[in-house]
């Protein structure tokens, strides 16, 4: 069986190509994106970009708009205004192509607890048009990558929190995306599991060049060279390297200074 090719074998849009760095379009470009829920302005002219093979942290407190932004990137709903391109494909005009290049780990656990790990991954593969031997091979490959080969036949509900997160990362990698979105992927994990998940994601970037947008509010998860976008009350307050943001102090202090103590 052949892997599914997105509808209308599209080309990246001209604007995204023009803004490309490193020989191809950026993994993600968010341009002036606003979103409103009734009277609540959830996002206000948010702009930033994630380059190919880069790790970008979206840093913000609960309610900053991180999940809303993820929902817009993944087309769960449409933005009020602005533009999002994934690997050069406009998420609104070329949703199939854009979504085919996204791997997503949502904040809430999204494995089906009644099904085995293999069945969960097989379902996800099918949702990307991958079936048969290709699916089986990729499932074996990604489970080996996240260290869960021995859990293939285990029901998802029996896995620990850390294992479930790793399984969700495996699932997100199945269709070989160019951009991995992780929305507070370490939420609810103990220190050890959190470190394992973070190490896994950083390893993927180093070994496979998978671009990553990592939403978090945990400063300790970020390293000095990381690209950090500070989101607060729906607005981007800073877009710089973690080391530059922290200056002589700590990233946490810089964040509090930027956000007025987080209020």
């Amino acid at each position, binding site marked *: 069986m052949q892997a599914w090719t997105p509808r209308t074998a599209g080309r990246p849009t001209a604007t995204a190509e023009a803004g490309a760095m490193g020989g191809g379009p950026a993994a993600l470009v968010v341009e002036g994106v606003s979103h409103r829920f009734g009277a609540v302005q959830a996002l206000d002219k948010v702009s930033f970009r994630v380059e190919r093979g880069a790790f970008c942290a979206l840093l913000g407190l609960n309610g900053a708009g991180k999940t809303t932004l993820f929902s817009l990137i993944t087309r769960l*709903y449409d933005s009020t205004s602005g533009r999002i391109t994934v690997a050069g494909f406009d998420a609104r005009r070329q949703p199939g192509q854009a979504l085919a290049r996204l791997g997503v780990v949502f904040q*809430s656990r999204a494995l089906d607890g009644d099904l085995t790990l293999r069945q969960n991954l097989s379902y996800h593969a099918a949702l990307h048009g991958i079936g048969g031997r290709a699916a089986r091979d990729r499932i074996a490959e990604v489970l080996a990558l996240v260290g869960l080969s021995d859990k293939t036949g285990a029901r998802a509900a029996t896995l620990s929190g850390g294992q479930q997160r790793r399984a969700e990362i495996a699932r997100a990698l199945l269709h070989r995306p160019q951009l991995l979105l992780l929305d507070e992927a370490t939420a609810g994990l103990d220190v050890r599991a959190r470190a394992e998940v973070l190490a896994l994601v950083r390893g993927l970037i180093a070994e496979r060049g998978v671009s990553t947008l990592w939403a978090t509010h945990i400063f300790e998860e970020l390293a000095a060279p990381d690209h950090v976008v500070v989101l607060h009350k729906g607005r981007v307050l800073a877009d710089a390297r973690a080391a530059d943001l922290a200056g002589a102090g700590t990233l946490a202090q810089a964040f509090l200074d930027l956000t007025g103590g987080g209020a």
Partner: protein
Amino acid sequence: MTGWSIAFAGIARREFLRFTRQRERFLAALVRPLVWLFIFAAGFRAVLGLSITPPYKTYVLYEVYVTPGLCGMILLFSGMQSSLSMVYDRETGAMRSLLVSPFPRWFLLGSKLLAGVIVSALQVYAFLGIAWVWGVRPPWLGYVTVLPALVLAGVMLGSLGLLISSAIRQLENFAGVMNFVIFPMFFASSALYPLWRMREASPLLHDICAVNPFTHAVELIRFALYGQVEPLALAVTLGCIILFFGATVFMYDPAKGLWRGRTGGAA
């Protein structure tokens, strides 16, 4: 296999796996109509006379009359169960996995709907098998000709369930669906009593039953079970499918419908 058929097969396989893992759901789906067939129908047989009306060519026992209605009942409850599972999936976040697939949303919703109908049709055949043992024996060919009717009726009721799921914000609100959708649809229909009987009792009630889409779904099944097509029932069922599914796709569209007004974590 193309990507589209792989995706559909994957969605159908998941629905089937979930169904087989939830044996109590299968039992509940069977027990409900069987209780009606064994107890309710037995009681009504004595008091409710049925004249010869199409598709029946002779007088029929009440349990024969009520069997297509009970097939419809299975599809109705199953359709609402799908709605419940969509709301649950949305609350737990599992629905995101489905909706972030690169396939168009109408295809994903349609595949989920059709997969649910296939599972429901299996339940209906299990029920018809028990009904056969109980003495309800339509012609053998009827078991084949009823299949398209079951699919159409199931798709119509499943579409309604999906449409309702798009409007329900929380699982707790689902009890209202039972009270305001399932029970009125079932009781104000031709599932339990012929429409001419309804007219004798109350012309208004007859008119309500006559416009109830579930009535037409039941009549479509009833005629198909005897190798016949009821044109009005077919037309109404097809029209309702277009209406309900179209509205569902609108409601689940990222740029339209209620989806737009939801908060960030509600999807």
